[in-house]
């Protein structure tokens, strides 16, 4: 069994740590790239959303490297993501790839049920010849890896606005990812991550700076996967802007684990109550909560990113202008699909940042600030 999985931001590091720990052969697909997207758009249904297309590209590129089993998570929410597995199985079968698909679905009553869930988990765990204690250890390590890399990334993105030597945070973050991807054991990866975490703390910063602070919100795949959002966070780091993103893989794990107890993301639920008091699927409610939190924490603006046709985010997109007006908080929506041109995308981001900068320095002659003060 040679396992592969679709990319989602930094989760490949955690998956690598997990499968290394379990002693299962795994193939990390090449980082999402133009070729993967081309393959994906060729074979996918026309109207499906962008994550589906990139995922198909990921699978096929790793099948070429010898993978024969795909692991993905499922969901039973009203968003399209839950139906991905069925269509993807059909597409890959039609292309002549005979693969095993292991779909990790929630073990709920209406879903696959507890028995089937354990069955599927067992399929993975039986491929490993390690002892049970070692398997649990591997799981623990992989959770540690994902929390560490999320922390490092969040810190690097935030410090990018304050660094004394321009570009230091970005170089360090890239080096950190590269080194940990090249590690040979989970323990080694954690050591590398810890080393870089300490190094990041020692980066010389200029506390006198007052950079723009921007929250990245929107659909979880497009904001986590840098290729899907055309590397927006790297761009913001280059501009010397502090950015922050609430949704991370480690947040997702925590959220999913606490959901049965109804204790998940209380802060977002309270913050979103005024504008969207219901879960509408995907991460629509979270998106509204993040805007309200960003406003509360003194951010200058927010950028919403979602793939074309994303159903929950269309609802939030129609709510955001009201929030923007009522709370005096600028929000820009960017929609990405396989046809997104980078030049137009950059222009919009730059224009938005310019606008925020002028607002911040209070040299706006007209517009929101005066009207609402």
């Amino acid at each position, binding site marked *: 069994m040679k396992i592969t999985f679709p990319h989602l931001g930094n989760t490949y590091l955690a998956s690598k740590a997990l499968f290394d720990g379990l002693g299962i052969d795994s193939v990390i697909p090449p980082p999402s790239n133009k070729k993967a997207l081309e393959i994906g758009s060729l074979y996918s249904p026309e*109207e499906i959303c962008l994550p589906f297309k990139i995922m198909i590209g990921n699978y096929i590129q790793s099948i070429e490297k010898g993978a024969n089993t795909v692991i993905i998570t499922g969901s039973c929410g*009203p*968003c*399209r993501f839950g*139906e991905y597995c*069925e*269509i993807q199985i059909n597409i890959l079968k039609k292309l002549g790839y005979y693969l095993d698909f292991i779909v990790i679905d929630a073990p709920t009553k209406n879903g696959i049920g507890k028995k089937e869930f354990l069955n599927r988990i067992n399929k993975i765990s039986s491929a490993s010849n390690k002892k049970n204690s070692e398997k649990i250890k591997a799981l623990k390590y992989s959770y540690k890896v994902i929390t560490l890399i999320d922390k490092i990334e969040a810190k690097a993105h935030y410090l990018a606005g304050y660094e004394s030597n321009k570009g230091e945070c970005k170089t360090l973050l890239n080096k950190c990812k590269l080194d940990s991807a090249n590690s040979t054991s989970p323990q080694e990866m954690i050591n590398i991550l810890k080393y870089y975490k300490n190094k990041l703390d020692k980066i010389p910063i200029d506390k006198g700076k007052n950079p723009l602070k921007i929250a990245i919100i929107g659909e979880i795949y497009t904001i986590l996967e840098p290729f899907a959002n055309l590397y927006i966070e790297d761009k913001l780091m280059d501009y010397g802007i502090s950015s922050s993103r609430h949704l991370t893989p480690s947040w997702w794990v925590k959220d999913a684990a606490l959901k049965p107890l109804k204790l998940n993301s209380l802060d977002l639920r309270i913050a979103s109550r005024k504008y*969207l008091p219901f879960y509408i699927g995907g991460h629509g409610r979270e998106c509204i909560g993040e805007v309200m939190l960003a406003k509360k924490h003194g951010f200058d603006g927010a950028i919403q990113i979602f793939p074309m*046709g994303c159903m929950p985010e269309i609802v939030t997109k129609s709510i955001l202008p009201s929030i923007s007006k009522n709370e005096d908080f600028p929000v820009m929506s960017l929609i990405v699909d396989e046809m997104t041109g980078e030049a137009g995308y950059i222009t919009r981001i730059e224009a938005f940042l310019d606008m925020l900068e002028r607002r911040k320095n209070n040299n706006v002659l007209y517009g929101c600030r005066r009207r609402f003060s």
Partner: protein
Amino acid sequence: MIIGIPKGLLYYKYYPFFESFFKELDCKLIISNDTNKKILNLGIKYCVDEACLPIKVFHGHVAEIKDNCDFIFVPRIMSIHEGEYICPKFCGLPEMIFNDIPNMPNILSAPIYATNKNNLYKWAIKTSSVITNNRFKIKKAFLTALNKQKNFSCGIKNNSYTLRIALVGHPYNVYDSFVNMNLVKKLNSLGVGIITEEFVPSKCIDKEIEILFKKPFWSFARQSYGSSVYLAHAKTIDGIIYLSSFACGIDSIVVELIKEHIYDTPMLVLKIDEQTGEAGFNTRIEAFVDMLERRTQHENNLSSFGKYLLSKQSTI
């Protein structure tokens, strides 16, 4: 008290219930007109660009009647079967309406979980709290409305035509004759009879669902997929026309699923959006019907070229 009911989305399926419920509570009802050009334009004006056509049309219906009523009833239908949803946009519909359209009157937007009688009654109590406090009256209105809905059935089934196709799609596309440009009449005048998903018993649908790897969690997907695949397998139809609105997330999945399981049954996917070009629409329907006629009358079923007769199995 005047309550406005927009004639959009699932109104076509559940209007007996909603209308008689509010009538029994002694409310005056204002129901918007059938969809027309003006309503469509209003909807396009107010709604976000990315939304699908039915949502835009619904915005138009609300905008048309909003100034004449005290409350607008915007149904937030979360689920009509246990463990199934409608669509994320239905769950957030009141928020969309409230934030998109300026100067809205109050909205009745209590969530509807119509999975059983008790859950639906909760909705009735919540919604009618602004109208009356008389529990007895609410209960009576609720039961009358439920009865009316039970006696109501929609659906189209023509028997007197030689050709017969399944017209599949969301109810608000199939029954809104402005949005689908009189598709039913057009097909009838071309000599094609229609059967809709309402005439497939739910037992048969359940049977078709079982072969899927994952049980669909949308009620629309269950209905459309189950009924069209059942009809195709039973060979009672000559073809399928799937009426889909552009950028519909559910249809992008369901169409693929249907195509996968109907073998050689001809299928036409008609996309509708606010750019109503009727000529191209007609051409596609006529071509499809021509093809069906030739298939049944002039050509035998053996493929003249290629290895397999059916896409899934070899028969020769």
